[in-house]
């Protein structure tokens, strides 16, 4: 099926998805740095966006997995890719509005799988690939991150217990700049590649590339730029949730969590696993809270985020399938324009709704203050109650 018009539209929407992936996931790399004041918010996102661009050029293993390991390449058509992208963007924008750190990767994979099932049925989906290369690493990686960050924070806290607080705080903040940089590179290597994989899939579907072809260089460049621009915009709502919501981060916790996230993501990227960088970063932040002396973690918020994680794949799949059916209803060429217009209207509505309770670089650490105080008070009350028990 050759359709240059449709191919160009798919590539544009894929780059829009990559952009939303960037701003949705800015928090993964910069939330602890912003929360502890190691860098000013704007400087943190600028540094992160530059290093995301660098990371996009380092490896193509994840792109290969996404292009060939999720759905049968021989049965894919461009409207399926388009529908999947529409589903993923819709889910990303929705979760961004609510400040939920959900997975852009799962949204993308869910969207494509949903659209593919609507087009060719469940037989066209490589379920083994989904289970082995997406679900298993996505469940295991945040648990690894939580345990390693908890261990790292505990050891670090004990090692530096006799250090003077000023030097310790300054040293760990400097370390955070390094660990945040490494994490941004890690994010670029894993997340930018997912969109590269989808564009490669579209090029194969259009007959522009042969099956199992490698990702062209121009795709790598465009995806790197799109994710870097998205990161620079900064998803402040999610930065607020991750930096202030789960636990009160100290520079030691911030450093331990960022180093843990970096090594988990980089080692997974190296093995071609398209895991969710968001889940890993969240696991690390929770682990750094567990590693503190009082183990104060806002588990109720973590539970709510966990529910959103469970919903991501099926909801994005439903959005993707609905988008594909919509395209088919109007005829593919007109249909993609209609669905694209509907997505644009939806994004505009969400944007204007978000203006009512705007989070930006200037207030990203302020808004959670009252919630955090309430959380600290409830934790202190719990301590008092526990101390009163025989």
């Amino acid at each position, binding site marked *: 099926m050759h359709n240059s018009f449709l191919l160009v539209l798919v590539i544009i929407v894929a780059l829009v998805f990559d952009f939303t992936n960037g701003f949705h996931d800015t928090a993964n790399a910069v939330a602890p740095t912003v929360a502890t004041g190691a860098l000013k918010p704007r400087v943190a996102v600028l540094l992160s966006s530059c290093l995301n661009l660098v990371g996009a050029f*380092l490896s193509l293993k994840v792109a290969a997995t996404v292009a060939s390991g999720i759905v049968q390449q021989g049965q894919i058509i461009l409207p399926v890719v388009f529908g999947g992208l529409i589903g993923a963007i819709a889910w990303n924008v929705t979760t961004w509005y609510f400040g939920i750190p959900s997975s852009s990767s799962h949204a993308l994979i869910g969207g494509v799988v949903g659209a593919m099932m609507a087009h060719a049925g469940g037989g066209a989906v490589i379920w083994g690939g989904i289970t082995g290369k997406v679900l298993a690493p996505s469940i295991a990686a945040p648990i690894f991150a939580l345990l*390693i960050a908890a261990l*790292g924070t505990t050891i*670090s806290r004990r090692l530096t217990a006799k*250090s*003077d607080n000023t030097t310790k705080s300054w040293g760990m903040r400097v370390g955070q700049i390094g660990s945040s940089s490494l994490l941004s590179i890690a994010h670029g290597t894993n997340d930018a590649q997912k969109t590269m994989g989808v564009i490669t899939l579209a090029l194969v579907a259009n007959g522009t590339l042969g099956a199992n072809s490698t990702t062209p260089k121009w795709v790598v460049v465009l995806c790197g730029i799109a994710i870097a621009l998205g990161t620079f915009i900064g998803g402040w709502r999610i930065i607020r949730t991750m930096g202030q919501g789960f636990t009160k981060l100290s520079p030691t916790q911030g450093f331990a969590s960022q180093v843990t996230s970096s090594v988990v993501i980089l*080692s997974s990227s*190296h*093995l071609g696993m398209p895991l969710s960088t968001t889940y890993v970063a969240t696991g690390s932040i929770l682990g750094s809270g567990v590693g503190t002396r009082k183990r104060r973690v806002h588990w109720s918020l973590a539970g709510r985020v966990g529910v959103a994680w469970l919903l991501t794949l099926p909801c994005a799949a439903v959005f993707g399938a609905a988008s594909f059916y919509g395209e088919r209803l109007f005829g593919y060429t007109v249909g993609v324009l209609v669905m694209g217009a509907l997505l644009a209207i939806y994004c505009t509505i969400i944007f204007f709704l978000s203006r009512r309770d705007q989070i930006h670089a200037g207030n990203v650490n302020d808004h959670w203050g009252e919630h955090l105080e309430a959380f600290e008070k409830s934790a202190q009350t719990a301590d008092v109650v526990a101390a009163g028990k025989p």
Partner: protein
Amino acid sequence: MTTATPLIDWHALGQVLLTSLVLGVGIVVLFSACVYSLSQFRRSGATVVVRATNAIVMTATLAAIAASVVWGLYIIIHK
């Protein structure tokens, strides 16, 4: 006769866990040792020997961290 490929690549997951555990905890421990040494180095009344020892520890830990990061990125780029 071919053997069926397992659905979940436990070997790869194990590799991720082991690498992340060694590097993640290792880097945090090394950097914490560096921060502790810096604190001792800056302490008023520290002797020349204490300062020199802590300076060596700081240099060694930072070099080890830099080497592990560069090595990790090298492997990712070149394999």
